[in-house]
């Protein structure tokens, strides 16, 4: 850090500890305000009519009966606001309400605002559509060929392909030709969804002053703000977006979503506030969850187990819309590029539209499925080479301050320390291949971006995160930023960074609710960007405030600012206990003639990536790393298995809030286990069979393993106080660790997720049929 950064060498006093969430007392007493807690005067109820058809042309509609129903204030179809939108500027193919045709069962085809819930739902039943059925496209493979009726006109050359990515670095064929060993894993992954606790909910209020206020459960207030403006045709400054507390997102609230825009449209139409609270089935249809995916991974190594090449293909089921899909298509390839050195790499990825609920970004977006196949493949290679799986990984670890073959800039990595910690803590050497039949341990590793280097709306002159501070004579420090706390603790981190830099009580710092009228732009909670980017912005703003306070103290102490020592809530001459100036004294002195002190801090990534097409995808200012060991205990007759323990070694750089990081890791292990053990969006053709939390099998509390968390990261040179992300990366290693542990336990490889008990039994039967004994069974 530079000489102008006086806190660089100071020991941390608050950060690094366990900091309870600043809003925690309000949440646990039910006082925190979520969107559904807000009631506006004269509020209407908004409801959505969803397509019962998987794919159909909307020929005509009769709204008369619905509009005539007493208590109905407005009925809208897609033609009123037909402008398409989408989170990525290059793929605007979503609509608030379907225009011309419905693209999946659940697609919104009309919206109603009424005096009460029942009237609104009755009105939906009275909307009469005349439709012409179109072919259903459930299988992405079939969609790669020419189809009779492409789901979107923008599909590639008459197919349903939304995006195709082809990349080649080095010479993969030459590398395979000289390989001592190679393996191939063909993975198959059911779609999973975020299943956040708080359902999607929005309130919109158009007011007679020509403004529109939208309260919404969102991770991306800024992107929502843009989409509302584009679709509704209002300048952004006439729209105000407010984000109350949010009950979880995991990527499921990281797109501007159609119901948010439909709700706003209903309010504009009626001139009254409209609340739209979606039920759980609605949330399943909105989805934007992890893509159902098939991938095909080949890895070549030399005789010592050094990776020579990856050859990767992915076929990604996008559902009805693009959402983040272009990014997903890149990520399914490029997020294979760590935590190992891979000198040659080839990738072909295709994301295909299907007539299913749209897929999008979900925690560890784009990295989860590809890492699973790679880590399972490496487990096979280690076995073939007679190498311990840890040794194979260690031999291939990406070194710090290196560049990958596709030009990712790797700065800090404590991956080797993750490996060492997980191996030691888990007692690996006493367990691997040594536990009795039915029990086993497995290793899985991961890495993830610590914030996407490129903002989605690429405006290179604007920062990705901005933080405003204001302190007036009362001594309270107000913090404004559009960073979106969705329960992960970013408000707490924001307050703690400010308190740390200023050496004041955390209770002085008040993070304000996100409100686009007053909050400076931060791009929101996605891509694990918040700690890194907002953290740096907050630190920068707080340093400016600190300088002003030090100047005030210096005046009172009659010494130059450079001689002032900043203590906790007090200032003294360097090295002396007296005389002391309190925080308020320094503040009031500093306010002389200027009034309230304000400061702006901002963070912008430096340019990254090569110059080839798609080079920016997957670039980040830093990366997290992980090595997890899972232990499993299989009932070899029923195929039921338990995961009694997971050892989670994680490198998130320097830990700033240990409590929050541990929570993120425990939650990630649970979410990862869900995708391994039972979560799947099941379909009959393109009809979802289980849109409920009873039949979508999130693991029960009894299935949750003990998680031993090993935080081993060294400070990152560019992260705020040395920190990197801990929100998404912690999920990734869970999945392959469990799968590899199952192999150690019962000698069966699993390449299809979820690994339900019936699949375990079938795999055991197949292994016996092959006459391949394992651990004597």
């Amino acid at each position, binding site marked *: 850090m530079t000489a102008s950064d006086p806190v660089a060498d100071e020991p941390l006093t608050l950060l690094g500890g366990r900091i309870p969430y600043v809003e925690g007392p309000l949440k646990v007493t039910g006082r925190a305000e979520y969107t559904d807690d807000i009631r506006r005067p004269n509020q209407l109820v908004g409801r959505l009519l*969803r397509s*019962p*058809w998987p794919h159909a042309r909307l020929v005509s509609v009769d709204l008369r009966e619905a509009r005539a129903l007493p208590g109905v204030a407005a009925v809208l179809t897609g033609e009123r606001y037909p402008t398409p939108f989408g989170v990525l500027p290059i793929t605007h193919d979503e609509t608030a309400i379907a225009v011309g045709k419905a693209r999946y*069962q659940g697609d919104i085809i009309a919206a109603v605002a009424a005096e009460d*819930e*029942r009237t609104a*739902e009755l009105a939906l039943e009275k909307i009469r559509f005349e439709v012409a059925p179109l072919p259903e496209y459930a299988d992405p493979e079939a969609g790669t060929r020419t189809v009779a009726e492409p789901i979107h006109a923008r599909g590639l050359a008459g197919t349903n392909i939304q995006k195709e990515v082809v990349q080649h670095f080095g010479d993969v064929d030459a590398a395979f030709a000289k390989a001592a060993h190679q393996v191939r894993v063909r993975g198959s992954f059911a779609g999973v969804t975020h299943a956040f606790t708080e359902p999607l909910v929005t309130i919109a209020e158009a007011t007679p002053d020509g403004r529109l206020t939208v309260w919404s459960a969102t991770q991306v207030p800024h992107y929502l703000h843009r989409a509302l403006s584009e679709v509704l045709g209002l300048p952004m400054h006439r729209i105000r977006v407010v984000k109350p507390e949010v009950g979880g997102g995991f990527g499921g609230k990281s797109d501007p979503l159609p119901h948010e825009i439909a709700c706003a449209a209903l309010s504009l139409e009626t001139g009254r506030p409209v609340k739209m609270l979606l*039920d759980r*089935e609605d949330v399943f249809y909105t989805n934007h969850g992890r893509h159902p995916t098939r991938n095909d991974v080949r890895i070549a190594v030399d005789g010592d187990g050094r990776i020579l090449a990856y050859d990767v293909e992915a076929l990604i089921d996008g559902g009805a819309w693009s959402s983040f899909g272009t990014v997903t298509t890149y990520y399914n390839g490029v997020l294979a590029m760590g935590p190992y050195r891979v000198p040659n790499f080839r990738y072909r990825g295709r994301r295909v539209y299907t007539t299913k609920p749209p897929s999008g970004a979900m925690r560890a977006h784009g990295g989860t499925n590809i890492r699973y196949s790679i880590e399972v493949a490496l487990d096979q290679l280690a076995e073939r080479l007679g190498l311990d799986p840890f040794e194979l990984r260690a031999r291939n670890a990406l070194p710090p301050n290196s560049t990958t073959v596709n030009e990712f800039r790797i700065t800090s990595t404590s991956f080797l320390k993750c490996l060492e910690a997980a191996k030691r803590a888990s007692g690996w050497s006493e367990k691997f291949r040594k536990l009795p039949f039915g029990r086993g341990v497995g290793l899985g590793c991961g890495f993830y971006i610590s914030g996407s280097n490129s903002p989605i709306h690429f405006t290179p002159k604007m920062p990705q995160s901005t933080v405003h501070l204001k302190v007036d004579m009362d001594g309270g420090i107000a913090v404004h930023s559009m960073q979106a706390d969705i329960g992960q603790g970013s408000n707490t981190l924001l307050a703690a960074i400010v308190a740390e830099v200023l050496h004041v009580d955390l209770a002085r710092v008040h993070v304000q609710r996100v409100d686009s009228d007053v909050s400076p732009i931060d791009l929101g909670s996605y891509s694990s960007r918040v700690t890194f980017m907002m953290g740096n912005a907050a630190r920068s703003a707080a340093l400016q405030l600190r300088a002003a306070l030090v100047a005030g103290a210096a005046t009172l102490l009659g010494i130059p600012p450079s001689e002032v020592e900043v203590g906790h809530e007090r200032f003294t001459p360097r090295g002396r206990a007296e005389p002391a100036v309190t925080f308020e004294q320094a503040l009031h002195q500093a306010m002389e003639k200027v009034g309230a002190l304000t400061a702006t801090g901002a963070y912008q990534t430096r340019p990254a990536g090569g110059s080839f097409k798609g080079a920016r995808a997957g670039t980040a200012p830093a990366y997290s790393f992980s090595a997890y060991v899972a232990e499993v205990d299989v009932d070899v*007759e*029923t*195929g039921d298995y338990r995961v009694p323990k997971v050892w989670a070694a994680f490198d998130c750089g320097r830990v700033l809030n240990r409590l929050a990081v541990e929570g993120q890791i425990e939650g990630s292990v649970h979410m990862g286990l869900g995708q391994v053990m*039972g979560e799947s969006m099941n379909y009959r053709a393109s*009809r979802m*069979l*289980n*849109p409920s939390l*009873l*039949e979508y*099998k999130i*693991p*029960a*509390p*009894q*299935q949750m393993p003990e998680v031993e968390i090993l935080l081993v990261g060294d400070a990152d040179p560019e992260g705020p106080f040395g920190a990197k992300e801990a929100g998404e990366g912690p999920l990734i290693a869970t999945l392959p660790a469990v799968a590899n542990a199952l192999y150690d336990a019962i000698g069966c490889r699993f390449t299809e997720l979820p690994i*339900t*008990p*019936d699949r375990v*039994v*079938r795999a055991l039967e197949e292994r016996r049929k092959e006459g391949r004994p394992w651990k004597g069974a």
Partner: protein
Amino acid sequence: MHLDPFELHRPTSVEETVGLARSLAGRFDYLAGGTDLLPNYKMHLNLRPHLVALEAVPELTGHSLERLGAMSRLADLERDPALAAAWPALADALREVATPLVRASGTVGGNLLVETRCFFFNQSYFWRASLGFCLKADGDRCHVVPQKTTCYATFSGDLAPALLVGDAEVEIAGPTGRRRIPLTGLYDAGGDGIRRLTLQPGELLVAVHLPPRARGRRGRYLKLRVRPAYDFPELGVAVAGRWDGDGRVQELRLAVGGAEPHPRTFDDLTAPLEGQRLNDARRAALGEEVARRVRPVHNTFLVPEYRKKMVAVFVRRALAQAEEGRAA
């Protein structure tokens, strides 16, 4: 999803209840714990304009070692150690129902009479409408086994198998008075997922009677489901019996639920084992034979081939664990 309005009745005696049932014939449902009925109502499944709540009928509440009032709450039974000691298979089953929160409301009668379940039935009105409905509600065909006459919805209560192996009887009040029948007789073995009970219109389940002759049998109930909480059974196997000092079977009962439209007993298979010592081979053979007879279909989360296979494993295990007298 909104709940349509209904008229709620709160009778305070069995006689009043039966009278109401007669006057509301075909236009009401009994409301016990409501944990299954109300979610089904929200999905607009077979709505009735009247609900007759049973919570204020004193005769239906309370339990002893011989009698479980139909409105006994599962959580209350679960907390009674004397009941658990006397009826170990029942104690197992009680703990396996749904979640503690559901068991706080859920009742014995509700669990015995719980609506059969199917992927194509337990769905919202919107979802079912999009598929064209099914035999069991609003439609005229089956999406599990495509045909137009038989419903394959699965009986999904946990208590029934456990009570069947305790030779339980049920007391029923109706327009023509009271009757008491074996629990097996409550389920219509000749019916299907729709016509599943032998109750006559207006009849009310008053209580379950637990015969003293079966008390203290060793027993076990094993439940197959994806998660160890929340889920309805994908299979439930109950066993109860007595063994003499030489390990010879004195009496043995076996029942299976969660696999077909009604729970079943297998007396013709268990009776011949009386007087014999069970060993692994005998237990396995019984398991295979029961599995051969049980025919699940693909209308729950786990595939039917697997559920059928598990019948054999669960029967074998339940037998062995019951004989061991393993604490439930």
